[in-house]
């Protein structure tokens, strides 16, 4: 571990062989313990445990119908949790994802209402609605990036402002009522055809996989971690930090907009109250999944498992007949457990 063994080492003449990467030399037993204490493994076991317990308490839980419903609940939260994963790893936070979800859904609903009234076909209308929702979300994300980069607001305050603005505008525009009269067949898209999966869910899964690849395998993710880990180092390395943060917040808005469209398809209308408070679910999912609010740490697989656990708890408690508000308590315990686990692991590594 010492810098070098011989102080008089001549440059370029290191006599020691390069140390091999850990994975080659680690014995199997150690790798097994490593696997079992791995946060992702624990999350997977928690998820499986929950499914088993809920299924024992009420066998109805273990069915394709229920899984399909759990996944439909999961879809929009997963999208904004993916958004939150990028934002939080970069050292920021996006409180506006829920409000952006609702706002995008409403704007897309107006666009689709107009297109339907003009006699356009359902497919093209839904496609255009998706684009409008995505563009609306990206716009909110761009406003966030302007507030952060140009006005130097901290992300918490910047996105708190857009949360209020987007949420307020949704109510003002609609008068509080859902915006319907869109394409009739939109709601049919939520019908599962591939096991418990419907078209919107397949899109979510593809988006999550692509996002995970960009986070872990591409330069985009590398810069995201670098900025969250040490913004000064990122800047000194020549990374255009402001431009990268703009991309991250616009991406966050884009994913929130898609989540808005997902809910439109599920409900058949754009409700201004959709997404209210969902930012807290997204942040909870991400934190349970092992992303550190201080930035620089986290994995996409953790976010996927964290959001699945959240969706499972929500439906499971209802199905076993527990008062649904217990969900908040269960989520609180999960967050505390996940974060203390991280702290324990960090301490273990240090000693």
């Amino acid at each position: 571990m010492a810098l070098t063994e011989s102080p008089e080492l001549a440059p370029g003449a290191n006599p020691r062989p390069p140390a091999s990467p850990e994975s080659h030399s680690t014995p199997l037993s150690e790798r097994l313990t490593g696997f079992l204490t791995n946060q992702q493994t624990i999350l997977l076991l928690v998820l499986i445990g929950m499914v088993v317990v809920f299924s024992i308490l009420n066998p109805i839980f273990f069915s394709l119908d229920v899984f399909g419903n759990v996944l439909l609940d999961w879809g929009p939260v997963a999208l904004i949790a993916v958004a939150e994963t990028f934002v939080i790893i970069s050292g920021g936070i996006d409180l506006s994802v829920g409000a952006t979800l609702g706002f995008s859904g409403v704007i897309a609903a107006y666009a689709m209402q107009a297109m339907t009234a003009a006699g356009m076909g359902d497919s093209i209308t839904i496609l255009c609605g998706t684009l409008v929702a995505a563009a609306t979300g990206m716009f909110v994300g761009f406003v966030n990036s302007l507030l952060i980069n140009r006005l130097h607001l901290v992300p918490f305050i910047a996105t708190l402002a857009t949360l209020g603005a987007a949420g307020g505008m949704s109510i003002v525009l609609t008068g509080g009522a859902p915006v319907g009269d869109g394409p009739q067949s939109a709601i049919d898209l939520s019908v599962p055809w591939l096991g418990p999966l419907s078209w919107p869910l397949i899109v979510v899964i593809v988006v999550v996989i692509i996002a995970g690849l960009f986070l872990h395998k591409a330069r985009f993710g590398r810069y995201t971690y670098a900025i969250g880990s040490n913004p000064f180092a990122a800047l000194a390395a020549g990374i255009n930090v402001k431009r990268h943060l703009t991309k991250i917040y616009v991406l966050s808005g884009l994913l929130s907009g898609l989540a808005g469209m997902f809910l439109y398809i599920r409900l058949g209308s754009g409700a201004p109250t959709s997404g209210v408070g969902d930012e807290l679910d997204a942040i909870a999912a991400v934190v349970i999944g092992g992303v550190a609010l201080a930035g620089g740490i986290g994995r996409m697989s953790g976010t996927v498992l964290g959001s699945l656990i959240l969706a499972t708890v929500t439906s499971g408690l209802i199905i076993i007949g527990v008062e649904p508000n217990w969900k908040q308590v269960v989520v609180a315990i999960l967050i505390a457990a996940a974060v203390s686990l991280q702290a324990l692991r960090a301490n273990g590594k240090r000693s």
Partner: protein
Amino acid sequence: MTDTSAPLYEVRNISKSYGSVIALDNASLAVRAGEVVGLVGDNGAGKSTLVKALAGAHRPDSGQIFLDGIERHWASPHEALQAGVETLYQESSLAPHLSVSANVFLGREIVSPGLLGKLGFLAQKKMDAEAHADLERVGIAVPASNRPVSQLSGGQRQAVAIGRTVSWARKVIILDEPTNHLGARQSKEVLQVIRAAKAKGLGVIFISHTLPHILEVTDRIVVLRLGKIVKDAPTSDFDVDTLLGTITGLLV
């Protein structure tokens, strides 16, 4: 090394003030290829301001910057980096959560061939291997280049930071307090790396409070006091006492 050769990197009559505080007052400094210039001065003498101007991080209020005899106006540290001027800052310039190789290649990642590369997908194995080789070439042995920097000791982190600076530098390296917080043996190794950089033909600007290190490794010493260059002379003109006297102003 010979004083007759043209300077590789030079600042002329640089001034910079923050409000009413004059941080730098007509400061000039030059470094030749294969030369190590020591920059010393008490706290608040303007060293950091000068380093930031040299690194392209701050734009001076007045004065000129020349690299290879061509005048430059750095708009960002990135421009200076691209032109071959590498800076190791006093603040940690490593991202602790990233691996050694990710830090070595930060901002200059190698991407996969073909379409994936166009999308920014990284050639991680290649970077791991090359980072290891690059660090060894400048005389730094680090256990495994895929290990997160947060798991390294303070000395090892500094070694990685210096190794990255030296292995990327094409013309000039600026080292701001590189031996700070390092033990005796690790400091010695840093000085060895500086000698290697000099042998490579790089111009080195070495900022330090540890005067014996400055005297040991530099060819020339520039002394800053209250924003002004008060002395610019060959290292052989100084010993620890005269250097200290010049820095504090008790001896001129």
